[in-house]
């Protein structure tokens, strides 16, 4: 077969799989979002109701707005904290040496850990009677000793954030170490010879050159933060009350617990919208690299 035909034959199976497993369900969800669809009743999906699911979410559901708020603040805090911690750790490890190779190996380990398991282990660590972190915080700051972390709405939210940040620091650190390593050494050395202090070198030379990698890292982390489900499900299951109910959890709850498929499809599609912008930004970085 000539290349000009073969090349399309080769991509066809992959495109079909992607269409069937991702593109079709995406648009099927969109279609369902215009229906009143209760899976528990016969003749699903029952009635076409236009945009009513969306207006219902916007106008009648404080729980929806609660999830939007939880997801937005969760995303903000996890992105900021993870990026800052990872940047700090990457800068600590940047000089290289034996220690770094060892640490880099260790950093892989938490990242291979299933998010669900991270949720479980943090629930364990913050157990008020025998949790290690609970005991630790009680020890350094005695007023915290008797606190039941996961029953307090604010604290439970912050435990979720801690678990998320803990789980993502290794990955971001590894990416940033790679980014730091690709900065030409002589630009940093030139700044040092020119008389810049360590802090100035970081601010004037290192960070500006790291900016594209930082941008990629922030976009990627935002996407994964917005989608968060696994560890919140295992850690707090959205509770106490709805204090940690992210949008993904809200969709799961409405769709699967109350079998309200039409409504949850509408909310799920509202999640897709910010993703489109983030994906666009991310694709720009990917293809800018390709052309370079």
């Amino acid at each position, binding site marked *: 077969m000539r290349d000009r035909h073969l090349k399309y034959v080769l991509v066809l199976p992959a495109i079909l799989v992607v269409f069937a497993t991702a593109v079709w369900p995406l648009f099927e969800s969109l279609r369902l979002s215009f229906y009143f669809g209760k899976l528990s009743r016969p003749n699903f999906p029952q009635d076409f109701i236009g945009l009513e699911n969306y207006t219902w979410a916007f106008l009648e559901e404080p729980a929806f707005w609660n999830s939007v708020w939880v997801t937005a603040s969760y995303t903000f805090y996890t992105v900021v904290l993870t990026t800052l911690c990872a940047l700090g750790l990457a800068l600590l490890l940047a000089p290289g040496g034996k220690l770094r190779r060892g640490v880099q190996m260790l950093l892989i380990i938490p990242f291979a850990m299933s998010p669900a398991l991270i949720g479980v282990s943090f629930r364990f660590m913050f157990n008020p009677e025998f949790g290690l972190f609970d005991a630790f915080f009680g020890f350094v700051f005695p007023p915290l000793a008797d606190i039941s972390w996961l029953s307090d709405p604010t604290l439970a939210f912050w435990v979720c954030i801690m678990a998320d940040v803990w789980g993502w620091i290794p990955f971001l650190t590894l990416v940033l170490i790679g980014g730091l390593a690709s900065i030409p050494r002589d630009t940093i050395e030139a700044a040092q010879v020119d008389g810049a202090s360590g802090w100035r070198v970081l601010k004037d030379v290192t960070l500006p050159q790291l900016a594209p990698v930082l941008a990629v890292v922030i976009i990627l982390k935002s996407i994964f933060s917005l*989608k968060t489900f696994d560890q919140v499900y295992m850690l707090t299951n959205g509770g106490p009350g709805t204090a940690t109910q992210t949008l993904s959890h809200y969709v799961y709850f409405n769709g699967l617990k109350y079998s309200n498929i039409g409504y949850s499809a509408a909310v799920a599609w509202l999640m897709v919208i910010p993703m489109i912008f983030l994906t666009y930004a991310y694709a720009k970085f990917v293809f800018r690299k390709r052309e370079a």
Partner: protein
Amino acid sequence: MTEARMLSGRRKKQFWGSLHLVLILAAIFVMLIPIIWIAMAAFKTHVDVYQLKLQFTPTLENFKIVFDAPYFLGHKLMNSTIVAFVTVLFAIPIATCAAYSFSRFRLRGETMMLVMILATQFVPAVVIVLPFFVMFRDLGILDTRLGLILVNLAIVMPFAIWMIKGFIDGIPIDTEEAALVDGSTRIQVIRNIVLPMAAPGLVTAGIFCFIIAWNEFLFALILTSKDAVTLPIGLALFKAEEGDLWNLLAAAGIIIMVPMFVLALIIQKHFVQGMTMGAVR
């Protein structure tokens, strides 16, 4: 430079050097402590686990219990293994063909296809799972491994295509052209030249996808209930009425994470590349 100044300069260096070391060690400690704590709990008796003890008599009892009735973790282990393995078995050859074509040829709508593949990775899983839940219910394949494998392809394919494409991009095209001139057809080139040279990359991508499929949670939570339950969902078994059975949870946790740690260490160099899909190198 006076001697005093030299001395203070050296002191300063020593101070920063040790602070540096202390910070790194602290970071390692924070990263590892939850894992170590879980690992320890897995070997504690159900009495010891409810105390903050560092010294205890290790026992393998927990591992025995989780595989026995009523938990039957072996069944979940089997499900996880089969689902992840078959997903990879389908994903890698399909992704390799596509990745080769994307890497070596200019296609009509190439950028659009690549962006589409990239974008599917970022679609929230809850969006995708709803129609599948409805469809699987109608087809009667809810709670089967087959259903789970199908949806797992959705998450694994984009990673596989982008990752393998990265590996093939790294193979010098000279070698393939030499083979074409030397008398090979395109198919022979792929079989004799590209596959052997890309083999380590394909294995890496396969392991990476295996880890992702193994750790997958939301699809399994929604699409399985009893027969096809995978390990991460199995964790929910150990929430008893009287509270969480931490020693058993920890033992199950060990069974979930240790194989993945080993696999992750094998492919550690490429982990970052896989996750970022070509945006950083």
